């Protein structure tokens, strides 16, 4: 996994986070979560900074933690974060055709997770706890139940239309 486009980092913001967590190695995950909240992803420069500032860590170690957990993203997330459930229930009720439809619609091929214009990002999650509505897609905070390949395209078209009008 390699990160691509990067935003410029305001290190004083990261120092604030580090200060709040006392520059402690044992708080690394919480620190990374906070940084991801600020930037919607983990910029490489931010990880380098964290790895250098906390004693006993190195940039490579921080990167290792960030890439180990699925909750961390090294790519900037889109304005609309699509979470597609691929838990057991959703999977057997056909989440894969829905996933393929989203990828085709947004042009997310070759492992890309965020669209060129930064509008959408896509990730699969293991279970959203709404198995009765399977297959489920969540876009930002909104839940889309009982999805099919066609239904998800309609939902995405609606968002795109909204954005164009805005």
């Amino acid at each position, binding site marked *: 996994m390699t990160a691509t486009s990067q935003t410029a980092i305001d*290190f004083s913001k990261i120092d604030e986070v580090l200060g709040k967590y006392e520059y402690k190695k044992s708080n690394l995950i919480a620190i990374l979560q906070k940084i991801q909240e600020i930037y919607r992803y983990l910029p490489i420069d931010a990880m380098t900074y964290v790895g250098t500032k906390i004693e006993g860590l*190195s940039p*490579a*170690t921080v*990167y290792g933690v960030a890439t180990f957990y699925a909750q961390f993203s090294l790519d900037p997330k889109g304005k609309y974060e699509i979470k597609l459930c691929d838990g057991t229930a959703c999977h057997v009720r056909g989440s894969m055709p829905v996933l393929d439809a989203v990828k085709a619609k947004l042009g997310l091929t070759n492992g890309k997770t965020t669209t060129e214009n930064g509008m959408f990002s896509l990730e699969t999650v293991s279970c959203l706890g709404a198995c009765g509505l399977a297959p489920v897609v969540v876009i930002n905070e909104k839940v889309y139940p009982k999805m099919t390949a066609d239904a998800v395209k309609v939902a995405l078209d609606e968002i795109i239309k909204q954005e164009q009008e805005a």
Partner: protein
Amino acid sequence: MSTLFINGKEYEYTNEPNLLEVIRNAGIDVPTFCYSPELKPFGSCRMCVVEVEYPNGRVVVNSSCTMPPEPNVKVSTNTARVRRIRKTVLELLLANHDRECTTCDKSGQCDLQKYAEEYGIKEIKYAKLTPEDMKAIDDWNPSLKRDPNKCILCGACVRACQEFQGHAVLGFANRGSKTVVQPLNGKLLAEVDCVFCGQCQAVCPTGALTIKSNIEEAWEAVNDKNKKTVVQIAPSVRVAIGEMFGLKPGENTIGKIYAALRKIGFDLIFDTNFSADLTITEEATEFVERLTKGGLLPMFTSCCPAWVRYMETQHPDMLGHLSTCKSPQGMLSPVIKELLPKYHEGYTKENITVISIMPCTAKKYEARRSQLKRDGKFETDIVMTTKELARMIKEAGIDFKNIEPEQADSPFGEYTGAGTIFGASGGVAEAAARTAYYYVTGENIADKDIKQMRGVDKSTRSKSVELDIKGTKVVVRVVSTLKEAEKAIQEIKNGTANFQLLEVMACPGGCVNGGGQPTSCKDAKIKEERAEGLYEEDRELPIRLSHENPDIIRLYKEDLEKPGSHKAHELLHTSYSDMFTGSYKDLK
């Protein structure tokens, strides 16, 4: 003292840190990839699994490197069950491995290859790697080559980088079947703050991390009729290279090395020990000057290129502490190119090729430093490690073990005991102290053996020694590994440092355990035996003080005036530059 049973026989054990060490001390070898006695046990490779039966009848199979020894347990190292597990581990590792053994740099010295042979792996039931699976090889630096397709994810390199040098440039990334070992974000080693010490390579059981070879360039130079090849050999090469030919660690083979180098066809052979003496006269002069004239203290030694790079990348604001002396390799090369033509006919600045034989991978990097150029050309042309020279000797078909010892050439071949001990942690400081004592008092130090500075084992990576130079108290701090060096730097930063001279060698124990030496990570005793070999030569040499080396005295008399002179500075001193790579530069 307690006892336990290994394969039915009772053995005593005392303070061994884990069961594996007890088993090995009993003379039984258990295969390992990820284990090194110098590193914290990790238990990732699972090759050292053994069956252990507890007194209550419970039987477990576990990795012996992570188990503490317990009294009265019955350990079995070769049951059908553990052999089956080891075989499966090997098959799985080999399935994910680029198995092009014959063209691999590690062929013949690879643990994976060795165990696959010992365990009779003839068939691997898993799919082979396809060309699409192959990851890019990183050899974009002068010292090391990283081939991720040969990596078995044992993590020894990651731990060596973290535990020795304190700032792991290598780390695990991703998860599960996608796990890789790599620098931050898959960058090249040259793009991160790697110091090229090569300890990652020294502990790597496979061909994933190897030394970037310069053997072919050396052969080309030897075979080129228009070139005059001049060699220099570093102190610790002589006590280690024999191991590659079945000799004991620590056996001083310098005469054999001279002879073998002549047989290969090098034109003149000099000794880096000579320029170690030269380094001492310059460095002791600089130290005494700083001490007596109020210069910046503590002064840091500058012989170790990994340490110098660490300072340039991590503490560029403190470069003034580094001695401006070049390393012994860095001093001898320009001396050869500038002054040798005076002594030997047919040699000119242009036709000389300097080849240095070093225990060190970082020396390859040092030789390419822009500060070490003269007339647009690098002062040192080719750097080979101990391992590479051994390979060259084998390739030339020389019977190293039985070759008749010879002498080095004149005028840069004479050396003293002080030059020899440069190869062990504490040696540079000890040699410098002997000469500094003379420069301050005009008399030679009474006891030349400053034993408190010595020691290359794990417990002596940081030593503080107080010297009394006729009333002047000087505290010398000797450290090996950059992790210990960083502690000394922090002391300076927070004002608690009480030392005036800091000697740093980046490899644990110093150059005797350098990244270019024959593999010594599996037995912590090897580097101690090599260091003892150096101290033995020091004891036996007639001259043990750098400033009494007759070749050095002549060199100053005829060419360099005196230590610290303008001419000496022009040839023997260097400068450093800010190489801070952190992306947060404005906040540093």
